[in-house]
C-alpha cells in the first residue's frame, strides 16, 4: 500500500508535525556544528603543540641519545654474537632494549651469551651518551673477563633525555 507524505513535511507517518521536525533538525544541526567547529579548533591547537620548540628539542635529544646507545653497542657486538642484557638495573635494561632490542641476537639461556651488555651512568668527559656509556663484558678463550667501553658516538650533557609521553 502506498501513501503520499503530507506536503507539510510531517514525519514518522504524520505523527510529528513538519515544523517540529524542522525546528529540532535546526537545533541539532546548529549544536553539532558549533561543537564540531569548537572541538576541531581545539584539536588543531593540540596538533600544533607537537611542533612547540620544547617538544622538538626533547624529541631530538631523545633520538640522539638512543642513536648514541645504538652506535656504541654496535661497536661492541660483532654480527652473530649472542648477547644478554644485564638485569641488575631495570631502567638500564629498558634503555638497552629501546636502543638495541631490534637487532641484537638475544642469548637463551643468558649464560650462553658471548657478550653481556650493561650501562654505566654518571660518566663525564667526551665519548658518553649524555653521561652514559655502553659496556660490554665478554670472556676470552682462556676464561678471562674483558670489559670494553662503546665508542663511535657521543651526546653532550648529563642525565637521560626527558621522558616522552607515556
Amino acid at each position, binding site marked *: 500500500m*502506498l501513501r503520499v507524505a503530507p506536503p507539510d513535511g510531517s514525519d514518522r507517518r504524520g505523527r510529528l508535525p513538519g515544523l517540529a*521536525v524542522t525546528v529540532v533538525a535546526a537545533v541539532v544541526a546548529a549544536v553539532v556544528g558549533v561543537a564540531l567547529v569548537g572541538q576541531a579548533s581545539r584539536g588543531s591547537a593540540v596538533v600544533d603543540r607537537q611542533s612547540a620548540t620544547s617538544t622538538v628539542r626533547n624529541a631530538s635529544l631523545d*633520538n640522539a641519545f638512543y642513536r648514541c646507545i645504538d652506535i656504541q653497542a654496535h661497536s661492541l657486538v660483532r654480527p652473530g654474537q649472542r648477547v644478554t642484557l644485564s638485569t641488575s638495573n631495570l631502567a638500564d635494561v629498558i634503555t638497552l632494549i629501546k636502543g638495541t632490542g631490534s637487532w641484537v641476537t638475544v642469548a637463551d639461556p643468558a649464560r650462553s651469551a658471548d657478550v653481556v651488555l650493561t650501562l654505566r651512568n654518571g660518566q663525564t668527559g667526551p665519548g658518553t651518551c649524555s653521561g652514559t656509556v655502553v659496556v660490554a663484558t665478554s670472556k676470552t678463550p682462556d676464561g678471562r673477563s674483558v670489559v670494553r667501553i662503546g665508542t663511535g658516538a657521543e651526546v653532550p650533557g648529563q642525565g637521560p633525555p626527558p621522558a616522552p609521553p607515556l
Partner: protein
Amino acid sequence: MSTTAAAFTGLVVLGLAGALPVVVGVGLRWVTLPLAPLAGAVLASLAATAYVALGLSFMTWFVALAVLGAVAAGAWWLWGPTLGLGRTDGKLGVSEGDLEETVRHPRDHRVALAGAVGALIVGVTCVASLRGIRTPTVGFDARALWVMRPGWFLQSHQQLLVDLKVRGLVLTQSAYPPLVSAASAIAWKVTGVHTARLGVVVTAALNGCALAVAAFAVADVGRRAAIGLSGRRAAIGLSGRRAAIGLSGRRAAHAASAPTPWTPLVAGVVVAALLVLVAAGVTEPFLTNGYADPIWSLAAVGAVAWGLQSPRERSAQSIAVVLVLVAGGAKDEGFVTAVAIIALIAVRSLAGVVADHGWRAPLSRLAAPVGLAGLELVIIGWWPELMQVIGARGASSTFTIQSDLTSRTTAVVHGMSPYLHVLVLAVPVAIAGGVVLSGVRRRTDTGNDLWAWAALACGLVAVAGALITGQGAIGPWILSTVHRITEFPTLAAWWIVGTWGVVAATALVEGNHRVESTSGEATPVGDAPAVAQAKVSA
C-alpha cells in the same frame, strides 16, 4: 634513502599487497585508496603470525599471502555469486551486485563532483592533521615495543621465538598483536632503512589512512541522503533486490525525478573534515609518535561507521571487514573491541536477513554472516592463541578477581570521566535525533545509532573491565594509559554526533512530496509500483 621516501615506498608496497582484495570487495571508490594499505597491513600481520607459527621467513609469508589474497579476490570476481560467471541463473552480464551499486551510486555529476572534492578535502585534512610527524618524536612504548619488534620479524625463526619468550627482555608487552610492528617490518625490509623513525612514520601514515576511511563513512551518509532526496536511489533497499533485477540497469540508473540537492552532500563532507580535525586532537601525540592506540581506535570507529551505520551492502561490509581485522590485530584492547564489533555486525546482518526473508530465510543467507564473523574471529584470534601456545612473555592472562573491586571501579570511573565529556553532548543529540529525526535517518539508509552506542559501550566496558580486574596498581595504570585507551569511545561518540549532524542537515532540506511504501521508505514517484515491496534496510 630518506625516511620520507622509505615510508612512501613501504606504504606503496602495503597498498599493492592489499589492493586487489579491496577493489573486488569495495569497488573503485575514493575510500579504496586509503583502505588498500590497511589491508596490506592486515596481510603483514598475518604474515608475522604465520612466521611465528610455521617458520620459513616473514617476507615469504607476506608475498605468499599477498598472492593468495589476489588470486582469491580474482576468483571471487570471476566466479563468485555476485558477478556474471557465478550467477545462479547462468546469465552473464550485469550482476545483482553491480545493479545494486548502479542504483545506489548512479552517475550524477553533483554526486561525482562532491565525491571528488570531498575526498580531496578529507585527504588534505588528514595529511594536515599528521603535521606533528615533522617533530621526530618516538614515544616510549613505540621505541620499547611497537617499532622495536620489526627487527625481530626480520631475524631467524629460532631467534624470533627466543625474542618473544626469553624472560631477560623484561617487557611483557611483547605478546601484543603484531600489526603495527609487522607493517613497519615490511617498510624496513623493502627499503633497507632500519630505524625507529621509519616505523613511526609508517604507523602515522596508516593512522591517517584509518582516519580517512572512518571520515569517508560520514561523507557517505550525506551522499546517500542526497541521492535519496533526489529520487535517484531508485527504489530499492537491500531487501528490494529482486524488484531491482526486474528493472533494466538503464532505467534504474536514470530514474531521476529531481536534481540532487547540495546540502546533504556538503554537510557530509564538512562534517567528515571536521571529524578528522577532532580525531587528531583526541589522538595526539600518539597519532604521530608510533603508538598502536590510534590505529585500533580509528579502525574500530570506522568499522562501526561502515559495518553498523551504513547499509548492509557488499561494499560497506567489505570495508568493515578490513577495519575490524586492523583493530583486532593492532592491540589487546583493539582485539576485545573488534570481537564485540564483529558480533554486533553479525547480529545486525542476521536481523536484516530475517527482516527481509522472515524466519524461513534460506540457510545460506543465515549462515553467511555467521561464517564471516567466525572467519574474522579466527584471523584475529590466531596471534593471541599462538602466544599462549609458545609461552610468550606476558601472554598469560592477568584476569583476576580483585578484593578491592569497588575502589578500583571508582578509580576507573573518575579516571575516565574527564576524557568522555563528549557523551554529555552525544547523548542528548542522539535522544533528540532518535525521537524526531529517525524517519529522516532511515531514508538516508543509515543504521540505527543504537548499534553504534552498543559498540561504544562494549569498547568502554572492555577497557574498564581490564583495568578493574587487572593486577597492576590502579592509580599509575590509569594515569599512564587512560587518555589512550579512551580514544575509541570518545571518537565513536563524536562520529555519532557527526552522523546526526548530517541527518539534521538533510531534514532541513528534505522535500515535502514523496511517496512512501508501507514501511515508511521514501521512494520516487516514478518507480513506486516497482518498489512497493521495498523495506527499510538496517
